[in-house]
């Protein structure tokens, strides 16, 4: 009996010691194979002549990188990616906060409204892109027709750079504004209500309350939303790919993004070496913007901390007096 008991307790000790590692291992194994390894190996591919069909060729060092940054198409893609990112993130955050503010009140059928603003989220980006590219057809699309009836000249949605970026950004905004509004709504509900009461006592109107109480309290959430948009936004592919029937981003690369450029190099021109070089450069860009974001966040968060404590102190003082 005794040895078996011993064995059992030893098994149990092993169980307790190693089971946690077993439980978390699926994530780490999978991440290593489909996340980390491909990323690191991208650098290896980027340093070679590498054809989609013929496979690995000669080691070429940094030649692929040099070739890519020497291309006009690369810089245009970079410009487009940043521009579409800014156009889709900026207005989206503003609209989402305003919508959240409207939702954060005594609404009848509250759940209905929340679900209502979230609806576009379940529409696949490909469908969104198809519908919107119909809206923005240059000659005979809905948008230009409406503009025409109110006496505005047709806009070159598919020929001019900025309009095409606006159209693509509108697809992103369509899908994500309501979603982010709910994030802001959650953050707004976490704002201590007495802050508003205090502001009201101080004679602040609703708009004033919104600007001086709500928005500052939301700052960390805003930064969060911007950071998460950065990672996805800089890799935008679906919407510009489906903006016209060719999928190459326009005759002059008006809306060709980095990821489309990567795809075109890798899968249309079969040059995995060049495509990998673009991937590495885009990775560095995302990291750089991430670091900038992080620094700003830290600074603002610190400032924010001080500010809110002063506010609270003021509140307490007010309560006492």
């Amino acid at each position, binding site marked *: 009996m005794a040895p078996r008991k011993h064995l059992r307790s030893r098994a149990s000790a092993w169980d*307790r010691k190693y089971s946690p590692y077993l439980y978390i291992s699926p994530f780490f194994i999978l*991440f290593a194979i489909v996340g980390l390894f491909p990323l690191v190996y991208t650098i290896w591919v980027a340093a070679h002549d590498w054809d989609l069909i013929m496979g690995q060729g000669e080691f070429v060092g940094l030649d692929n990188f040099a070739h890519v940054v020497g291309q006009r198409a690369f810089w245009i893609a970079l410009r487009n990616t940043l521009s579409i990112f800014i156009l889709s993130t900026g207005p989206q955050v503003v609209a989402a906060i305003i919508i959240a503010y409207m939702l954060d009140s005594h609404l009848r059928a509250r759940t209905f409204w929340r679900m209502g603003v979230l609806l576009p989220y379940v529409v696949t980006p490909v469908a969104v892109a198809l519908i919107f590219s119909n809206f923005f057809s240059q000659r005979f699309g809905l948008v230009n027709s409406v503009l025409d009836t109110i006496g505005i000249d047709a806009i070159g949605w598919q020929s001019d750079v900025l309009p095409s970026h606006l159209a693509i950004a509108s697809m992103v905004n369509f899908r994500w504004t309501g979603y982010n509004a709910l994030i802001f709504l959650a953050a707004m509900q976490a704002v201590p209500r007495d802050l508003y009461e205090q502001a009201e006592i101080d004679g602040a109107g609703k708009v004033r309350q919104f600007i001086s109480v709500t928005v500052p309290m939301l700052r960390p959430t805003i930064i969060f939303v911007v950071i998460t948009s950065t990672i996805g936004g800089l890799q935008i592919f679906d919407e510009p790919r489906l903006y016209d029937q060719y999928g190459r981003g326009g005759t002059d690369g008006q809306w060709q993004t980095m990821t489309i450029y990567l795809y075109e190099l890798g899968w249309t021109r079969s040059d995995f070496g060049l495509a990998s070089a673009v991937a590495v450069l885009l990775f560095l860009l995302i990291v750089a913007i991430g670091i900038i974001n992080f620094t700003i966040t830290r600074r603002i968060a610190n400032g924010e901390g001080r500010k809110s404590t002063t506010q609270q102190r003021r509140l307490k003082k007010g309560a006492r007096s």
Partner: protein
Amino acid sequence: MTTSAPLAPVDPEAKSGRTLGRRRRSAPGGQNRRPGFIVYGCLVAVVVGGMFPLWWSFLIGSHDSTILSRTSFPWWPGGNFLANAATVMDTVPFWRATMNSIIVSTTTAVSVVFFSTLAGYAFAKLRFKGSGPLLVFVIATMAVPTQLGVVPLYQVMAALGWTGELTAVIVPALVTAFGVFWMTQYLRQAIPDELIEAATMDGCSMIRTFYHVCLPAARPAAAMLFLFTFVLNWTNFFWPFIVLGPQNPTLPVALQQLQAAHFVDYSLVLTGATLATVPLLILFVFAGRQLVSGIMQGAVKA
């Protein structure tokens, strides 16, 4: 291969559904504002604006190809939707794509929920060496744009002979950092430590404790994680587009095939867009409430 999905720094109190509910009862709505006509008007505009493209899609899809050439736009559906739908299904492998999307989304959602709960349980409730740094590592990976490893990942799939197969889409999405983090956060406050201690004292093995204590407690968060993973994989395009090709597509991949053609027939394209949206709209009717509270509790970004 999924876009990273961190959590918002929402007030910790707001994170739990229960506290949220309680507070709401005591102070319903923000600042006791009574919304006037303007607020309702604006919200109606937002909701209508959100539905209009879908309505438009159905509208155009219910007419024939000449509809967009007319001088005035139609504001009422025509009778051609079913005929167009039949043509869509004739043109692209629609049913196959739908089945593929259901398989991919369901498998990944189930798998993500299972592995995330397992890992989340370990991180939240079990003590082991290195758990802190490992969790930080998991969170950090959410900020890594893994999509950029697409070239080697494609080569891996090719070497395995998986290109064109659903496996190539499913396997990379079997567990996500976001899922692990989400379950860790939830389980931390959902299971009292005493319960686990009691189970261990009773001689329960680790896996039995997981099964009897953790799984039941994880249910609400697991349901939400399921929904978000499902939607994420249903709407995913880039990777399936690259690795599956037109032969064995998921729904978004099949859908894009409608656009590029010898001539763009928008009544067909938009019929396809409508058809591809319907399944998730149905899901939304039943589970939209959970999605809303999921976003608000965790401020998920999927």
